[in-house]
C-alpha cells in the first residue's frame, strides 16, 4: 500500500513536471517504477508521451466517461466510440445493410431499410452519412435519439438510443442531395435537413441553362414525434431557396431560439461544364468575394405552414421562396469567402462562419441581425431575398489561418476552429459574455496546434450545445499519410484526440485513432451518463420496431410450432441457449414461409444469431427480441440454420435443418 502511494506520488510529480516544462527528456530519472521507466526508455517515450498515455489509458474493466457518435461516411453507418480511450464500441448500420445486427437481412429492419429507397422503389444500398445529431432538450443532449443524414441521396435516419438501432429512414422526395443535416432545434421540435447541390424541385429534369429559373435549394424541417420516436412527414415542411448550394447549418438557441442558420457557397450560380470551355465548378463557385449566410425564422415558417400557406409537392409541404420573403422567414447576409460552417455559440448570441478561402472566421451578432431586420430598407439579391449588410451584423472577425472550417466550444470561453489548409486546430477567445471566462483578450487567436493531417470537422465534449463540457477535442483528419502502418493506397482517416483541459497555449495531441472503414465527417461527444440505453429488451417477445410486445411472439418453448395452411407455412420458433425449437422444418418447394423467432433469454449479452444458409438471411436476436422473416422457399434441398453469435459452450450445436422437398 505504501509502495503504491509512493508510485502515485511520483507519477503526480511527473505530471506536474510535464506541465511546467515542455521537456522532451527521457523519463529514466523521473521516478517511474523501474520496469516502467525501462520500458519508456526502451520505446523512447517522452514525458509528453507518458502524460498522454496516462490521460487516455482506460484500465481493463473501466468505462469511458464520454461517448462519441461519428458519421461513418461512405459506409452509411454510425460509429460509436469511447472517449478518451478511442475504442470503437459499436458500428450501427443505417444506410447500408449490416449483417452483425441482422440489419436488412430479414426481419423488421428490412422495412426500415426499404422505406429509404427512391420514390419509384429503386434500391439504395449505401449512403454517405455526414452529420450525426443527438436529440436535445433545452439545447443540451438528452441521449434519447440520434439523427443522421445521407448526403448522397438526401435521406434522414432516426436511431433510437435505447437499443442503438435504426428505426426510420425518410427519403426527401424533393431533392437529391443534402449536406446541412442532421441538425436539431433546441428541443428537437424539428430535425433539419439542409440541401447541397441545387436541382429542380422534386429533382425533375431541367437543362443546366435553366439553372437560375428552374434549379432550387430546399431546406426541410422534419417534425420529430418524440413519443413515437419517428419523424412525421405530414407535420413537416420545406422552404424553397435560391440554388446557392446551402451547406452546413446550426439551430439558434437561447436568445436566438426559433432561428436557424446555414452557409452557402455558390451564389455565383455556377453551372460548371469544364468540358465545354466553362469554368469548372471549383473555379466558378469561388469567383465572388462573398456568399450568403442564410438566416431563417423557423418559428415564423412553422406558423406560415400551419396557416396553410405552403404548397404540396410530392406529398411534402413546401413554402415557396416568394412566401418566405413576404412572410419574413428568410434573410441573407454576406459571408467571406466560399465559407464553411455556421456554428452558434452556447448561449446563442453569435453565429460563427469559417472562411474556407478566407483566413478569418466571421462572427455575426444575432442581436445586430434583429436590429438590421427591424430597421428595414434592405437591398435584395436577384431572387428578392433581403440582404443584411455585413458591417451592420458583424460582431468581429478573427484571423486564424488558412482554411477555417468548423467551430466548437468549451466551458472556458474558448472556441476551436479546424484549419484545413494549415492542418491545425485554432484555439481562440470569444468575446461578449464569454470574455470573463478566459485571461486573454476577446476575439484573439491563442494557439494553433498542428494535427495530422488535413482536418475537416472538429468536435468537443458537448461542444455544440448550450452546455459545453470542455476537456477534449477530437480532430477529424482526412489524411493520415504516415501515421499508421501502410495498409495500401487507400489509407485510414485519423481521429486525433486533443487535450484542451489546460488554458492558454497548452493544447496537446494525445492519441491517434485510425478509422479504416470509411471517411467520417462530423461527430458529437456526449457525457456517457446521459445514456438511457437498455441491456435486455423490456419483455420477452419485444418487437424493437414497434417498441412493444409483438402479437406473434411466443413466451415459452411449449408454444413453438409449425402450422400449414395450403402453401403457406407459419413457424413459431423459440430461441434459447443452446437450441432452436423446432430443430426440423420440413416444407415443400414454393411454399410461402412466415417465420417468427423469439429469444426467451433475459440475461445481458446472451444474444443469438439466426442464419439460414442459402437464403441470404441473418438475424440478431438480442435477449427478449422477436423478429419475423417472410420468404418464398424457391430453392429445394437440405439447408441448415444455425446461431451466428457465440452464445454458449454448445453454441456450435445450436442449429437445425430446413428441408425443402422438391
Amino acid at each position, binding site marked *: 500500500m505504501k509502495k503504491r502511494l509512493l508510485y502515485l506520488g511520483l507519477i503526480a510529480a511527473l505530471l506536474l513536471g510535464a506541465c511546467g516544462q515542455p521537456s522532451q527528456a527521457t523519463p529514466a530519472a523521473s521516478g517511474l517504477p523501474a520496469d516502467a521507466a525501462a520500458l519508456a526508455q526502451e520505446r523512447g517515450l517522452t514525458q509528453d508521451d507518458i502524460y498522454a498515455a496516462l490521460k487516455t489509458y482506460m484500465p481493463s474493466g473501466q468505462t469511458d466517461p464520454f461517448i462519441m457518435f461519428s458519421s461513418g461516411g461512405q459506409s452509411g453507418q454510425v460509429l460509436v466510440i469511447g472517449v478518451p480511450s478511442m475504442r470503437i464500441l459499436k458500428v450501427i448500420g443505417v444506410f447500408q445493410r449490416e449483417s452483425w445486427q441482422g440489419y436488412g437481412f430479414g426481419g423488421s429492419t428490412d422495412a426500415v431499410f426499404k422505406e429509404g429507397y427512391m420514390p419509384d422503389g429503386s434500391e439504395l444500398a449505401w449512403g454517405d452519412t455526414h452529420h450525426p445529431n443527438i436529440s436535445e432538450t433545452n439545447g443540451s443532449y438528452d441521449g434519447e435519439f440520434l439523427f443522421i443524414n445521407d448526403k448522397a441521396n438526401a435521406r434522414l435516419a432516426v436511431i433510437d438510443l435505447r437499443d442503438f438501432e435504426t428505426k426510420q429512414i425518410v427519403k426527401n422526395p424533393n431533392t437529391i442531395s443534402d449536406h446541412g443535416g442532421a441538425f436539431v432545434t433546441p428541443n428537437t421540435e424539428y430535425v433539419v435537413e439542409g440541401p447541397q447541390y441545387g436541382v429542380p424541385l422534386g429533382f425533375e429534369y431541367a437543362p443546366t441553362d435553366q439553372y437560375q429559373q428552374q434549379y432550387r435549394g430546399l431546406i426541410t424541417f422534419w417534425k420529430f414525434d418524440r413519443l413515437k420516436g419517428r419523424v412525421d412527414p405530414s407535420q413537416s415542411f420545406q422552404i424553397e431557396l435560391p440554388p446557392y448550394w446551402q451547406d452546413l447549418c446550426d439551430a439558434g438557441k437561447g436568445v436566438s431560439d426559433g432561428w436557424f442558420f446555414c452557409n452557402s457557397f455558390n451564389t455565383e450560380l455556377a453551372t460548371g461544364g469544364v468540358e465545354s470551355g466553362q469554368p469548372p465548378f471549383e473555379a466558378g463557385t469561388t469567383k465572388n468575394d462573398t456568399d450568403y449566410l442564410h438566416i431563417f425564422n423557423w418559428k415564423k415558417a412553422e406558423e406560415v405552414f400551419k396557416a396553410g400557406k405552403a404548397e404540396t409537392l410530392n406529398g411534402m409541404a413546401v413554402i415557396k421562396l416568394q412566401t418566405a420573403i413576404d412572410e419574413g422567414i428568410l434573410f441573407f447576409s454576406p459571408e467571406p469567402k466560399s465559407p464553411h460552417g455556421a456554428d452558434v455559440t452556447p448561449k446563442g448570441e453569435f453565429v460563427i462562419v469559417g472562411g474556407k478561402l478566407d483566413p478569418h472566421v466571421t462572427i455575426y451578432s444575432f442581436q445586430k441581425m434583429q436590429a438590421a431586420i427591424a430597421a428595414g430598407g434592405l437591398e435584395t439579391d436577384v431572387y428578392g431575398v433581403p440582404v443584411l449588410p455585413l458591417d451592420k451584423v458583424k460582431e468581429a472577425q478573427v484571423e486564424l489561418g488558412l482554411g477555417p472550417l468548423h467551430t466548437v466550444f468549451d466551458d472556458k470561453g474558448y472556441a476551436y476552429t479546424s484549419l484545413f489548409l494549415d492542418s491545425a486546430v485554432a484555439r481562440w477567445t470569444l468575446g461578449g459574455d464569454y470574455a470573463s471566462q478566459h485571461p486573454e483578450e476577446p476575439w484573439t487567436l491563442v494557439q494553433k496546434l498542428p494535427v495530422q493531417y488535413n482536418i475537416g470537422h472538429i468536435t468537443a465534449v458537448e461542444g455544440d450545445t448550450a452546455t459545453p463540457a470542455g476537456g477534449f477535442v477530437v480532430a477529424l483528419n482526412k489524411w493520415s499519410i504516415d501515421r499508421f502502418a501502410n495498409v495500401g493506397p487507400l489509407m485510414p482517416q485519423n481521429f486525433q484526440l486533443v487535450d484542451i483541459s489546460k488554458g492558454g497555449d497548452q493544447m496537446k495531441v494525445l492519441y491517434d485513432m485510425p478509422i479504416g472503414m470509411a471517411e467520417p465527417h462530423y461527430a458529437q461527444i456526449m457525457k456517457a451518463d446521459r445514456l438511457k440505453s437498455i441491456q435486455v429488451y423490456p419483455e420477452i417477445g419485444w418487437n424493437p420496431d414497434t417498441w412493444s410486445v409483438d402479437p406473434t411472439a411466443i413466451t415459452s418453448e411449449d408454444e413453438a410450432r409449425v402450422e400449414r395452411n395450403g402453401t403457406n407455412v407459419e413457424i413459431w420458433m423459440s430461441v434459447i*441457449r*443452446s437450441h432452436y425449437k423446432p430443430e426440423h422444418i420440413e416444407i415443400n418447394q414454393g411454399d410461402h414461409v412466415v417465420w417468427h423467432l423469439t429469444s426467451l*433469454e*433475459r*440475461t445481458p449479452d446472451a444474444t443469438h444469431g439466426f442464419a439460414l444458409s442459402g437464403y441470404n438471411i441473418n438475424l440478431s436476436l438480442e435477449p427478449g427480441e422477436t423478429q419475423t422473416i417472410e420468404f418464398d422457399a424457391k430453392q429445394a434441398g437440405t439447408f441448415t440454420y444455425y446461431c451466428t453469435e457465440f452464445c454458449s459452450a*454448445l453454441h456450435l450445436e445450436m442449429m437445425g435443418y430446413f428441408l425443402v422437398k422438391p
Partner: protein
Amino acid sequence: MKILNLDPDVKVLLPDGSTRQLQDYLIPSALLMVAALMLMVSMFVPYWSMTMTAPQYPKGLKVDVYVTHLAGDVREIDELNHYLGMPLLDEGGRFERSISTVAIVTLGLLLIAGVFVHNQWAALLAVPALAYPLVFLADLAYILYQYGHSIDPESALGGAIKPFMPPVWGEGKVGQFGTIANWEVGLYLAFAAVLVVLLALWFHRAAYKPIVDARKKVGSGK
C-alpha cells in the same frame, strides 16, 4: 420487573386473596403476540438464498427463497441448469409454498391462542412455532437432496455430473460456478420468534402458575 409503567394501584386479585401486578399478565401476552407478528413478517422476506458466481457473471446470480415464492435470477439459473439436466428450481417445494401462508398464519393464531389459555397447555400451543424453523431447514435439506439427485441423464451434460447434495449453508462448486448458500432474514426471524416464545412461556408460567396454584389451594380449602 418494571417494564411497563402501569398504575401500581391497579392489581390483579387472585382466588386466594393475594394480589399481583397487572404487568405480570401483560408481558407474556405481549411477547406471544410479538412472536406471532415476527412469523407474519417473515413471510415477506427471503428465508434462504443461493448465490452463484462465475467469470462471465460479474454480478453473480442469486435466487432468493421466500416461503411463498422464488425470486431473483431463477430464469437464468434454470437456463444454465438445463445443460446439467437439473429440474426447474420452481419444482422443488411446490407443495410447501402452496400451504405456507395458511400454515404460518395458523402458527401465529396458535401463539395468540396461548394468550387466552391460562395454564400449562399454552406451551403445547406454542410447540408448532418452536419447531417451525427446524422443520423448515429439514424440509429445505430434503428438497435440495431431491434436486441434486434428479439429474436427467439425457441432458447435454447429464452423464458428466454425479448426484450431489447442495449445501444448506456454506459454499460449494458446480462446474465453473461457485455457490454460496445463505440463511436470510426470514429464517433468522423465525429463530428469533422461537426465543421470544420461550421467553413468553417463562413469563406465562410465572404469571399463571400462581393462579392455578391459588385455585387449587382455595378448592382444597373448601
